[in-house]
């Protein structure tokens, strides 16, 4: 039995977390919510091809925060199974393998958490999985595993926030190159999301591209856009000073505060304006926030027949879609990863993400590491990351439990947390 954070179906605690987060801010309701620190057995290997992985670092993602704050859309209710161990941004070490072509124990790996048809032993695979677009798998609630669109939301696999480890299928594991630190490696999963979004944005060389939001996903998206596309101008809206600095370092041509973003887009696109609506605007807007306000702003500053790529996970939002209709704007979601076509060559998104992380040294975005025992502090820190000068908060599964309150460790290259 080892320590793990387990998320249980518990309606009163769920409601309490929601109220606390609404009053005190994101990540502040963890102590009274459905997440609890407990002892668990390591999950069983579900079958051939499966590996047991001992996590080293596991990130706290925006979608994790939404879950802990009880703000996730009810859409996901049938796509998860309880109780589950959260944590889908994981770097770890292979401990045990079963089946053909196993990775050797001790191999450092990052986990591609989507539980598609192959891990679920579904044959034939769904059309999306057959094409390698595992993020689009139609069967994430079927097969021999409990429902769960990813490791970290499935009752059978365990998750990254656990010293007891998790299980992942061979197709979900990517060996980490020696050149990447653990901090770099834990950034591969969110960067893979960013890579998928950047490629999904269909950026042309003359395009003005605006990125809304400069948390982990926004910054990784800027890095991916800069690496994989050649926009004429890449403009970023970033709320906090350290985010603005990082956005510029990662390749944004212009970085402004979010309230100034429409003005910057207007100027770069040489648009006119009618009230808050630009007459022309950015060719592509990548929304890495996913709120009603960010969507409204995206629609207000994308050009007619332009493209809004929704990368930040939205919930239930109320928004006026008249401009989308009138201006024939394409609004598209960009979820997870799979296989991408780059210059006519098919590559796994994770492989591209590993390159992007290495090229930009994205491990510097890891701002603080916490042991599991301090999960309330860690989640609160993640919930206020921007305000507190941080970007990515991770659990350090190898850290010793504290005997007294200690300061979180900071990445040497990271901003102050």
């Amino acid at each position, binding site marked *: 039995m080892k320590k793990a954070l387990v998320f249980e179906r518990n309606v009163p605690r769920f409601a309490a977390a929601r109220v606390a987060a609404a009053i005190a801010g994101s990540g502040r309701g963890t102590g009274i919510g459905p997440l609890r620190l407990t002892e668990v057995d390591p999950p069983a290997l579900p079958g051939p091809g499966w590996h047991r992985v001992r996590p080293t670092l596991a990130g706290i993602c925006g979608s994790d925060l939404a879950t802990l704050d009880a703000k996730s859309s009810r859409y996901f209710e049938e796509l998860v199974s309880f109780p589950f161990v959260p944590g889908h941004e994981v770097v770890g070490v292979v401990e045990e393998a079963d089946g053909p072509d196993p990775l050797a124990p001790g191999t450092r790996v990052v986990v591609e958490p989507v539980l598609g048809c192959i891990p679920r032993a579904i044959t034939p695979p769904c059309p999306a999985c057959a094409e390698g677009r595992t993020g689009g798998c139609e069967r994430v609630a079927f097969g021999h595993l409990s429902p769960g669109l990813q490791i970290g939301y499935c009752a059978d696999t365990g998750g990254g926030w656990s010293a007891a480890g998790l299980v992942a299928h061979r197709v979900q594991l990517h060996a980490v190159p020696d050149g990447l630190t653990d901090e770099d490696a834990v950034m591969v999963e969110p960067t893979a999301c960013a890579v998928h979004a950047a490629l999904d944005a269909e950026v042309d060389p003359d395009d003005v591209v605006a990125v809304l939001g400069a948390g982990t996903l926004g910054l990784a998206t800027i890095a991916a856009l800069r690496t994989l596309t050649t926009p004429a101008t890449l403009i970023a809206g970033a709320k906090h000073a350290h985010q603005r600095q990082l956005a510029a370092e990662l390749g944004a041509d212009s970085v402004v505060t979010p309230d*100034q973003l429409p*003005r*910057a887009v207007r*100027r770069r696109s*040489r648009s*006119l304006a009618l009230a808050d609506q630009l007459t022309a605007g950015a060719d592509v807007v990548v929304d890495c926030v996913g709120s009603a306000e960010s969507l409204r702003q995206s629609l207000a500053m994308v050009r007619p027949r332009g493209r809004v790529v929704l990368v930040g996970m939205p919930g239930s939002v109320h928004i006026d879609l008249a401009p989308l209709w009138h201006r024939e704007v394409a609004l598209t979601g960009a979820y997870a990863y799979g296989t991408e076509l780059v210059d006519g060559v098919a590559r796994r998104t994770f492989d591209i993400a590993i390159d992007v992380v290495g090229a930009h040294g994205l491990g510097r975005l890891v701002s603080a590491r916490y042991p599991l025992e301090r999960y309330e502090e860690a989640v609160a820190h993640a919930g206020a990351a921007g305000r507190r000068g941080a970007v990515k908060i991770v659990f350090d599964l190898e850290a010793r439990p504290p005997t007294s309150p200690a300061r979180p460790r900071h990445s040497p290259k990271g901003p102050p947390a």
Partner: protein
Amino acid sequence: MSPRPGFVLEVDRSTPPTLFWHGERFALERLPTGSRVIYGPEPLAALADPVAAIRHALTHPLGDVDPLPAQLRPGMRLTIAFDDVSLPLPPMRRPDLRQLVIEQVLELAADAGVDDVVLIAALALHRRMTEPELRHALGDRVYDAFAPHDLLWQHDAEDPDNLVHLGLTDHGEDVEINKRAAESDLLVYVNINLVAMDGGHKSVATGLASYRSLRHHHNARTMQHSRSFMDQHQSELHTSNWRMGRLIAASGVKVFQIETTLNTDTFPEQFRFLQRREWEWTLRDRASFVASSNSLRRTPPRLARQLLHGIRAPHRMTSVQAGEVEAVHALTTEHVYAQQRVEVEGQSDILTMGLPYICPYNVNSIMNPILVACLGLGYFFNLYRGKPLVREGGVLILHHPTPNEFNPVHHPSYIDFFEQVLTETTDPVEIGKYEESFATDPWYIHLYRTGHAYHGVHPFYMWYWCAHALEHLGAVIVVGGDREAVRRLGFKRASTLADALEMAEDVVGRDPWLTHLHAPPVMMADVR
């Protein structure tokens, strides 16, 4: 008793605290012993009969030109251009000088049977004036006679159909001005010469010009070579305008220049203490100061701004001259200096100044951070002839709240300049690379032409205005300024004057010598 000339006070232990403007408020500051305070001359006596003086000027022109009545004939095209809302400061009580002069010109035109008359507000790239502002400048009678018939225009520097390119100067400068003005049989230009920079060939060559023309002298290089731009003979800004003005004349444009000067009677009775020397304050002055300070301190900033922008200055005409541009301007400049010149010996290590609520570009508007910089480092720093009041490498201390606040109607491109250019660089030369994209931005052009917005390129000009000072100074400190705004400008912020002086010592050394420019009322330091 004749008005007293300007005065340089040496501060000693008995000197009372010195008044500083602080935006919409005032402050009393004790300056270090040995500092000097420069006070401008007292207001000169006004002309007893300004209308008669105007008539006399129009009928007795300077230079080789005929009297105005002799130049007027039936069937001719007459255009009367006039300075815009940026002059004078604060706006003067009615009747405005422009009204007095234009009424006389129109009377002569009517007597001569001239029918084709158009009035043009010479905006250059400034915002269009509102109806109340035009009525104030021209008087209701003139406004009502011209505006309803579309005979009162505001110069549109972006109207390709109403601009004419007259050629290039021998320095390759485009000269492109208002077509109606250029193609009239006579162009009468009515100036209010508040400071030495105003008037001369600058009136037409700048006031009625396009961006294509203005960019040749409104740039960092020109301003760095204008020392100062208040001294026409040492000003590259003026040299360029003079080249253009002469080309305009050589192109056959007949300009009849009218220039007027004002005394420095700047503030109404309740604010009279602002133009008195502190040790001479009467009991009433002290009471006015306390009452004004307290009430302004308790008034919300927006309301205080409104109150102060409602001030109508009592300043009055001290001279009027008309005729050929250069002859007129030479005499006008003498009158300006007579009112404003103060002799000053030597440069100090530190120059302090309190900045008021108003500058030429925020009449009835907000003094945004870029305008604060322009007023301090552009206008006030350049109020010198000879040498700057502060030595090279010295420190300029401004007293102003510098709110991070903009009027989105008047200054839309300023907001973007502040957020998108000054975040990249504050170097006046380097910012030039962004100039064209602002100058040709269709949205700014639309707002300039149809709303009340300054042209897209205008904030660049404000920053170029600071170029000479930025090159000359070792540091700029703003007392009481908004932290973020001051930082964005590239300056340092101090909470108090005492803190600012301590900070300044890091730049200029211990026991620095300090000069305080006690303005407004405006003055001109003749520094030897």
